[in-house]
């Protein structure tokens, strides 16, 4: 991809694609706007990164955008067939409660950009890994595949290119390596996190509850600070919630919607393209889905849904597979042998260390913990006490799926630390709070859904 026009067209195409996929129902315009805001940054920035990467890989730049156009057109067709008016959509009646997460999201976006004026270059990992990769992609151009093997492994060039490639493409477009481009690309995802939480909770609960839940998620200091420092864990948490959330909404027989199936696929596919941690989470969620999916659905319905899911996730997975199979720097977490893996797994000391570190991180009495998680911690304690007080949780199919997805994610991240080949204390101290951030919105949303009742469908 060599021209400014092509870069701009791909970005706009991605945004329009997102809006087109999500806004095909008969919802009020406010709801359609909400749905557009929720997904447009993902499709816009995501497609830009994929097409830039494919342009480098294919070597014939014009083919990359062409492939993306064809794929995304196919996605629109996929989502638009059999589009139905679901009972959930009739409840999304354009409530003004949406203004709460919108105002908080806009306020935080502004705050993030103001913070960037002071410290706009990002944190240490952003400089050494993410922005380094972006600079490398931008400067090396078509030489990228040839130069890749010579890079210092300390820069973790095995990390996926969702953000680096999208930033490189925009730098190419504006003609300089502008920090503003990096900052706005990251800040772009704050508001969609709020609207995503709102949309998923509102699909099963009232707009009021959805609005307050999204406020709590947005007001988690870790989400703002790591995003402003240009780490991508907050962005991964957005994709994780979107992937698991839209899959969960498919559990209700009356509420199956091809639009949501396509959206779930896009979010799930984006997870591993944003960060390596998305790969195990993708397998966990897909495994959980297909295990429970086999029950209560005809093979025809099952096949249709699966195809939508797979095809839409392939938009991002194609790039990931090409990246991982052609330039496969070894991930330091899987560099260890089989023997040490099982040795670590059976070491009680390692389990105790990891669980202790999680306990310290999430202990509300710990001042550092409060400053990172604040409202999220308070909400978690509230939900736990409330759930225990009533002695049972109300398990509908959506809540159950999200609950299992949360447990699997938490368990997965504990195991990762137990088997890490890195020095365990160093690894925990440098990354655990960011791994908690990756699954925090998912856990909170599932907690809120578990502790509240499902309203009866609106018959108005």
């Amino acid at each position, binding site marked *: 991809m060599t021209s400014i026009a092509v870069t701009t067209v791909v970005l706009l195409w991605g945004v329009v694609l997102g809006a087109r996929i999500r806004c095909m129902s008969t919802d009020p315009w406010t709801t359609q706007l909400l749905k557009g805001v929720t997904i447009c940054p993902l499709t816009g920035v995501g497609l830009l990164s994929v097409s830039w990467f494919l342009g480098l890989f294919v070597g014939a730049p014009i083919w990359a955008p062409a492939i993306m156009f064809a794929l995304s057109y196919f996605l629109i067709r996929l989502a638009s067939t059999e589009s139905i008016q679901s009972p959930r959509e009739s*409840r999304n009646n354009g409530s003004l409660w949406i203004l709460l997460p919108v105002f908080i999201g806009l306020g935080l976006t502004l705050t993030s950009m103001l913070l960037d004026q002071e410290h706009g270059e990002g944190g240490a990992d952003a*400089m050494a890994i993410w922005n380094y990769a972006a600079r490398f992609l931008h400067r090396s151009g078509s030489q990228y595949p040839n130069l890749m093997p010579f890079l210092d492994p300390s820069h973790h060039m095995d990390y996926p290119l969702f953000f680096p490639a999208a930033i490189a493409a925009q730098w190419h477009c504006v003609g300089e390596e502008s*920090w503003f481009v990096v900052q706005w690309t990251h800040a772009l995802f704050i508001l969609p996190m709020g609207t995503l939480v709102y949309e998923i909770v509102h699909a099963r609960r009232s*707009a009021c509850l959805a609005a307050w839940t999204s*406020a709590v998620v947005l007001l988690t200091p870790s989400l*703002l600070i790591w995003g402003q420092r240009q780490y991508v864990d907050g962005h991964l948490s957005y994709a994780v919630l979107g992937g698991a959330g839209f899959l969960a909404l498919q559990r209700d027989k009356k509420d199956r919607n091809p639009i949501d199936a396509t959206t779930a696929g896009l979010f799930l596919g984006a997870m591993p393209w944003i960060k390596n941690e998305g790969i195990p989470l993708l397998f966990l969620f897909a495994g959980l889905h297909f295990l429970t999916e086999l029950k209560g659905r005809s093979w025809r319905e099952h096949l249709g849904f699966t195809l939508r899911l797979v095809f839409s996730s392939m938009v991002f997975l194609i790039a990931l597979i090409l990246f991982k199979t052609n330039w496969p720097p070894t991930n330091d977490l899987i560099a260890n042998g089989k023997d040490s893996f099982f040795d670590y797994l059976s070491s009680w000391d390692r389990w105790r260390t990891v669980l202790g570190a999680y306990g310290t991180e999430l202990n509300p009495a710990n001042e550092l913990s409060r400053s990172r998680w604040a409202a999220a911690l*308070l909400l978690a304690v509230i939900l736990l006490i*409330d759930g225990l007080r009533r002695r049972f949780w109300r398990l509908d199919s959506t809540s159950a799926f999200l609950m299992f997805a949360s447990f699997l994610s938490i368990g997965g991240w504990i195991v990762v630390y137990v088997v890490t080949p890195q020095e365990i204390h160093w690894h925990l101290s440098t990354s655990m709070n960011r791994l908690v951030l990756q699954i925090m919105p998912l856990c909170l949303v599932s907690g809120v859904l578990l502790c*509240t009742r499902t309203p009866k469908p609106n018959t108005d």
Partner: protein
Amino acid sequence: MTDQDQKNENPLVLGLLIIATVFGLLQMFQTVKAEFSRPTPHWANPYFDDLAKHLEQEDSVIFMTDEEGFKDANGRIHTCQYAIIPTKLDVKTDWPSAFKKLDSGSWCICDAAFASSIDDAERKIRTWSQKDGRILTFKRFGDKLALFRSLPPKKDKSK
């Protein structure tokens, strides 16, 4: 929200969600305030542009700094492209190995990351150069930055 929705909501959870939001807002306010008052890093230096001009014709520059890097007068950060970053390692034991990488004779920009002050940094660089008989070009820019190049001794062809 319909009346039916409101009746079916768990009022306790809703009320506590609002409390959690207010608590979150207060914590967020404190966090942002702390971020804004984070001191300007030591590398902010108006002399950097002079350095940059001097180095425009060089193919590569080694930045001898810590993970914070250098920031020029326009707010641009210059770090990881060529930086020697002693993250995750003991700085005291890592700097000697960093010095070894300077054998190429590239121009280097340094701050006091590996010393107690820029004077101390200059002293260390001179000691290191003299030890091997290297030819040192050293120029100070203000009280925080220095530019230097240390070339290997020329071989005596008469021998």
